[in-house]
């Protein structure tokens, strides 16, 4: 029995060699470049290592030092603040624009879609360079526009550093609103027109249709976009980095310091505390996992409530 099974294994391998050969590259590449670094990163986070010399095991010291570092907390609060505030215009704006374009009240829908989507194909570095200029203190178009209404020049990227986040949020919303809109629009086009008709006949207003029909039906898509952009937020790096003139500390008073910037500055870009940076990477990862699980759970619970208390 045992031998036939062994024979059988080799036999199936040979018989299906084409199929295995086709799928093998992914698993080999993932094992080497994906799985191995992730596992090694966990191990490394318990060591002190400068990248060249011997490694020193130091238990959870890296994690403790990380939580003691006020700069880490600054980076975390910046990242969360940017993340949460930027989601409001991206989500609501995306939904509203998609709803308007889907309502068939306006023509040239494709022209608007194309314009709103343009930032998505543009390099983040170029966008950041442009916005750095638009937010310029003495020459930027934004301060010029505000000056028409009697506002004194605002030092967005300097000052006490707190307004750097505003610039990042504006830039982020500008970039991502089109992407969300296109996704929501595709979802709305999947909703049967009869439902809208029926609601209209019953005298429902657009706002009511939006909140009672469109959003509940689009919920899986909305949850997907929230999870995606939350992950994007934790990896936020390029925009604040370029906006603050490639300063690894996030500009004045660390106003633009994000978690990813903090991590890369520990190693390999600024310093060489590889173990410490690895611990930081794991903390970020755990937060990503928690947020994904939380968002998914939250949406499921609401779903059940709806089911329980009647439709």
């Amino acid at each position: 029995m045992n031998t036939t099974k062994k024979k059988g294994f080799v036999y199936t391998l040979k018989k299906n060699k084409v199929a295995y050969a086709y799928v093998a590259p992914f698993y080999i590449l993932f094992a080497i470049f994906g799985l191995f670094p992730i596992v090694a990163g966990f191990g490394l986070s318990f060591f002190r290592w400068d990248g060249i010399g011997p490694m020193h095991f130091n238990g959870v010291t890296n994690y403790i030092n990380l939580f003691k570092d006020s700069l880490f907390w600054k980076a975390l609060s910046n990242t969360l603040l940017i993340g949460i505030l930027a989601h409001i215009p991206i989500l609501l704006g995306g939904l509203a624009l998609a709803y308007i374009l889907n309502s068939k009240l306006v023509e040239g829908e494709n022209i608007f879609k194309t314009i709103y989507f343009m930032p998505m194909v543009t390099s983040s570095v170029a966008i950041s360079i442009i916005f750095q200029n638009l937010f310029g203190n003495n020459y930027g178009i934004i301060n010029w526009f505000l000056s028409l209404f009697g506002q004194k020049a605002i030092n967005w990227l300097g000052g006490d550093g707190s307004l750097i986040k505003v610039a990042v949020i504006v830039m982020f919303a500008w970039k991502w609103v089109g992407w969300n809109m296109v996704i929501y629009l595709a979802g709305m086009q999947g909703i049967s027109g009869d439902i809208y008709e029926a609601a209209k006949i019953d005298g429902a207003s657009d706002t009511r249709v939006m909140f009672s029909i469109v959003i509940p039906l689009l919920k899986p898509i909305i949850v997907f976009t929230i999870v995606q952009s939350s992950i994007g937020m934790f990896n936020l790096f390029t925009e604040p980095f370029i906006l603050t003139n490639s300063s690894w500390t996030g500009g004045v008073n660390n106003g633009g310091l994000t978690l990813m910037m903090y991590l890369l500055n520990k190693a390999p870009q600024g310093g060489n505390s590889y173990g410490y940076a690895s611990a930081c990477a794991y903390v970020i990862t755990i937060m990503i996992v928690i947020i994904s699980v939380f968002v998914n759970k939250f949406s499921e619970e609401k779903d059940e409530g709806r089911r329980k208390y009647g439709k």
Partner: protein
Amino acid sequence: MKTLLIGILIIAVVLAVISKIHPIGKKVSLYIVLGFIALIMLIPFYMMFVMATHTTSEIYSFPPAMWFGTNIVTNLKNMIQAVNFPLSFLNSCIVTFGNVILVLFFCSIGGYAFAVYQFPGRKVLFAVLLGTMMVPWTAGIIPWFIMMSKLGWLNSFQALIIPSCANAFGIFWMRQYCQNNVPVSLVEAARIDGCSEWTIFFRVIAPILKPAYASLGIMQFVNVWNDFMQPLMILRRPEKMTLPLMLKTMVGDRGTDYGALMFASTCAVLPLLIAFLSASKFFMSGLTSGAVKE
């Protein structure tokens, strides 16, 4: 600031009122809102083009220049002196095309195998594949970098081309496409005609997958072309830099030549932007294919 906010409020109220009065009023106010947002989306691009034609001191003046200047040739010359644009462009092309071609190849054969072949362990392997999509790559970023340096791949393009070929989403997506568009009978017919399995894939299947190649290719292309973080870690020598890195080197604390920088940004952004504008539907469906099920 106060006048601005009050003005916005008044405009919003007026638009709301006229949209209630008459259907045409509603249409007009929707156009105004959409047009205003379109304007906001376009201004940064417009300002980039405008600034690319001005000298740095003109850019630093107040009020800012709103119309095209005459300094474009000087900016071009300054850019050529400051950086090697053609080389960076070539580097970006090598990294992006190399990665995209490999991704399309591996993903299509993988997805095809999962869709068409019945082999033991198929379900388990596919579940593992889906599982890998949940794993955040951030966790392994430091060992990944160390690995690249131990392999001697720092300052080399394969570090950016090869590791990201393991694209679980691509395989998943290709499998969906194969299941919907590749009839098993077609594969069997080709087999009866005596085609080898490789011939079947390249001669019969690959042509069917063309639309899938286009969507996945566009998504991967845009992501890799615009990527900044990985190249920043890997490519440190100026002669190896991709376009985003080249742009970054032109920004300094002091003495940034903004005219040349904006000219370089324009040159870096324009190819993809033109491609997008000429096939925007294609791009939009490609870039959102991760979220939207057809």
